[in-house]
């Protein structure tokens, strides 16, 4: 399991925990003290990353926020990319 934390400057804390199997994400879990409405969308975001190639991370995160009516507060879509990347590098 890889794990990283990222504190958004002037914003909230994000953490990502994940595994990589054959170049694909496995068991992605994102935690932190941020705000997302509706809250259960986090489960969908994790599902949208699991079993996808790690190099598609940015595209898949961006597509998720384009296709779903999700409001973020204290973090931005790009911060999810950043924290997952940090976890990959850990």
């Amino acid at each position, binding site marked *: 399991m890889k794990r990283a*934390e*990222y*504190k958004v*400057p*002037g*914003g*909230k*804390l994000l*953490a990502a925990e994940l595994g990589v199997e054959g170049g694909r994400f496995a068991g992605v*879990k*994102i*935690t*932190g*003290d*941020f*705000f*997302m*409405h*509706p*809250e259960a969308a*986090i489960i969908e975001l994790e599902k949208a990353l699991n079993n996808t190639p790690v190099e598609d991370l940015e595209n898949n995160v961006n597509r998720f926020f384009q296709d779903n009516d999700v*409001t973020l*507060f*204290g973090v931005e879509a790009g911060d999810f990319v950043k924290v997952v990347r940090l976890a990959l590098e850990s």
Partner: protein
Amino acid sequence: MKETWRLIDMRIEDAPTQMAIDEAIAMARLKEGTPNTVRLYRWNPSAVSIGYFQSIEKEVNLPACEKYGVDVTRRITGGGAVYHDYDGEITYSLVAPEADPKMPADILESYKLICGAIVNGLAELGVDAEFKPVNDIVAGGKKISGNAQTRRHGVILQHGTILVDSDIRRMFQVLRVSDAKISDKLIQAVEERVTNLRHYLGRQVDFDEARSALIKGFEDTFDVALEPGELTGAETRLVKQLREKYRSREWVFQR
């Protein structure tokens, strides 16, 4: 004539029940046509509530909670972990429709407005506090209140903590604070980030005095009269269902 909102005043309940009451009021607001509601409440036993997205293992020192008899639950709102000290903390909640003319559509503006009610209440006590984005209220540069909002069922539910005389040492025994968060704020001692009414004012503030000030803060900010009321039958039935969720391992340990 002034608009009237319901006040559910200083109920003392355990953590699952308090969280169930907030959620039940939010669920019933449009479906049952219940009034806009402000609650002030205390947690018995003392409890930690963590934000919806938080990792329980990373945020909470579970053995310390066990040792001190501190309950743990997960909120439906995001945000951070809070220590609700029975002897030193008041929690508030506010439920109003997103479409209410008094409620800004913009999330930051709505935090600013609702936190403004707390700031105004604290001013009644002589505290010079201010809203600090994203979701804090600070006095003398230290956090005195944390707040969290969700929007669901067409309503805004915001709840938050006001530190009256919280045991700050115990707070940091039961909560874990991440290194990333500490280094960002460039402060070695986490205790230096937090204050309470007694520390700030240098005198004892009893719950009744704080309660009266907060009520005035809400009434003045929203130009309403808060009228003491109780939960409806429908809300009470919802509370009984919902509190099982807040007690369940499946909910509390979900991440």
